[in-house]
């Protein structure tokens, strides 16, 4: 990622243009605007979304664009701040007058964008919204395959998968951060495990951003559960595993909801960990040649961008799906009108790279059903192990 003189000039003029009313988009391209947290705390995930979206837009244009017009993606940096996300979406809609908008990243920013979309009657697709009940706008559509009630559905996925373990767990230790979305799921897990007749032997909540996992690890070791429920995301799973390693402890089985995939691979103790996903770069997902091609292109572009983990997984897939849904809706309706598109989406379904998305339930979600899978880290690779139709060839939960 070298910055050339031309890029620097382009950057300079982009800076200038952010203060000048741009000319009305009379030209041919269809302009689609969105923000991503390219700097700030969420930047590690934003870069995955950015690379993915760039591939999607390139592919779209190679296929002749939308409605015969080329597509231009207007991306801005919300610096991981919801208030900036709100202002930039207002800029995109009211000043830049983009034709359509696309998803920002993370719950708080999506809610900020959703408010703007609602005021200007724009359709909002979103990739990474953690708490579905908070999405109260009738023209918002998730493209992650989440259910309306992830706090019920996801724990069931995980306990279903755990039941297939060679030694099915009976006692569970729940350790969760207070990061809003994973916390909500962990709270749900407590109810689910009760219904399934499992026993909760430990329940700990810690502040997101915690640095010292030593005492938590020691308490898990003391509780000696069959199964560790890690209500964790980002780098926390790695920190927790390292802390447990230091006291020579390894839970018999464990799940970490949304780990950063790369660093986990480098921790030997993470072998066998379960996690949630929508997509992994192996068959049957890659049976579709177009998807196989995407996986290949992504690996190249990610490497070029310096991303350490170059396989397509959850994060990349939900962004890819967002563009698939947009393309499907525009092509089906032959329209760029937000209301027309939204009306179509509500009564249709779209096949995306990890299954068929539907929005016909409460708040445009589906209750009790989703496209999430459970993956397991096996011999340095993440493989989907549950449910069976999506499992990697020959892969079994171990």
């Amino acid at each position, binding site marked *: 990622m070298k*910055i050339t003189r031309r890029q620097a000039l382009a950057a300079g003029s982009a800076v200038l243009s952010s203060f000048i009313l741009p000319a009305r988009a009379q030209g041919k391209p269809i302009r689609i605007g969105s923000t991503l947290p390219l700097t700030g705390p969420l*930047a590690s995930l934003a870069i995955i979304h950015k690379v993915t979206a760039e591939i999607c837009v390139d592919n779209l244009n190679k296929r002749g664009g939308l409605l015969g017009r080329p597509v231009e993606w207007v991306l801005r940096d919300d610096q991981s701040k919801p208030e900036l996300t709100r202002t930039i979406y207002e800029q995109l809609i009211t000043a830049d007058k983009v034709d359509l908008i696309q998803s920002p990243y993370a719950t708080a920013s999506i809610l900020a964008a959703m408010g703007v979309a609602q005021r200007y009657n724009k359709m909002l697709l979103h990739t990474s919204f953690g708490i579905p009940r908070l999405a109260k706008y009738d023209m918002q559509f998730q493209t992650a395959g989440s259910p309306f009630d992830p706090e019920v559905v996801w724990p069931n996925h995980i306990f279903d998968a755990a039941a297939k373990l060679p030694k099915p767990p009976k006692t569970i230790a729940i350790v969760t951060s207070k990061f809003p979305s994973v916390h*909500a799921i962990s709270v749900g897990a407590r109810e689910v495990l009760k219904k399934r007749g499992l026993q909760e032997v430990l*329940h*700990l909540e810690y502040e997101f951003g915690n640095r010292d996992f030593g005492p938590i690890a020691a*308490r898990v070791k003391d509780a000696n559960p069959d199964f560790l429920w890690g209500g964790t995301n980002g780098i926390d799973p790695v920190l927790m595993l390292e802390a447990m390693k*230091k006291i020579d402890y390894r839970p018999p089985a464990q799940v970490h909801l949304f780990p*950063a995939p790369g660093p986990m691979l480098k921790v030997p103790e993470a072998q066998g960990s379960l996690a949630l996903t929508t997509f992994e770069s192996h068959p049957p997902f890659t049976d579709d040649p177009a998807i196989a091609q995407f996986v290949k292109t992504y690996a190249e572009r990610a490497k070029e961008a310096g991303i350490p983990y170059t396989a397509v997984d959850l994060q990349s897939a939900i962004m890819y799906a967002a563009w698939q849904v947009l393309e499907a809706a525009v092509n089906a309706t032959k329209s760029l009108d937000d209301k027309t598109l939204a009306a179509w989406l509500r009564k249709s379904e779209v096949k995306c790279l990890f299954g068929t998305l539907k929005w016909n339930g409460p708040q445009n979600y589906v209750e009790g059903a989703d496209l999430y899978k459970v993956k397991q880290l096996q011999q340095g690779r993440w493989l989907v192990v549950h449910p069976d139709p999506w499992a990697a060839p020959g892969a079994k939960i171990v």
Partner: protein
Amino acid sequence: MGGPGSEDRLTVPSATLLGQSVLSGVFIGALYGLLGLGLSLSWGMLRQVNLTHFALAFLGGYLTFQLAAVAKVDPFVSLAVTVPLFFGLGVALHGFFTRFKVTLLNTLLVTFGLTSIIEAGIQWYWTADFQRMESAYAQVRWKIGPLYLSLPDVITLGLALALCFGTWAVLRFTDLGKAIRAMTEDAPIAAAFGVDEKRLGYLVSGVAGAFAAVAGVCLALDHTLAPVQIYAWMGVVFAAVMMGGLGRPLGPLVAGIVIGVSEALTMAVTAPTWAPLVSFSLLIAILLFRPSRF
């Protein structure tokens, strides 16, 4: 949504759990102290609030990571590169502050700007994604009675103790140290007695930079690197530095361990989510009731 989070009631922990938690707190506290040492020196002695210290420590971590990943250089051998380099950066920074006569408050601003630049540089070269160094050190651990010690932790503690006590001894027992203390107390009078204030300033700033390099190795050894982590450590390390007394080499270490252990014990006996409340309330209480200690 709130959910019943109340079952993290007070539990009576086993002695092993307590012991292991105290150890854990001591080790994390040692890292606070190690990160805080350079900060405390340049703040206390040069009247510079150097936010860049955190950025340098992480840059040191990244360089260690890079040398290990590309050239298979042992993390401690890479100190041969990072220590002189960061000493030079420290000297250059002090030169900049002296040249432009930057005031205490403005050092905060300038180093904040510099931190943004270094952060952007790191993000540009290594991306915002997490990077993690693999090293043989992380695999070594010992069992003493029921308690476990891991090598990276012991190294961190050892380095923190060595640097803090080393600095303390130099300041206390050598002529150089006396000159530095004299300069800190009253620069004009020290100058009148022949203390070369300028050179000492460069020395202190350079040493602070070198300490950032050492802290960087510990970060690389035992933590995951991401550009945004630069800011994650600021609050608690600042607290340790101020609580420990500016310019006192043992202060940040002691204060860091107090914070680390109090948080660890809270996590061991009650809901871990309350840990910051306990450690920072303790800090406030100490400030209010024994401010003269500082």
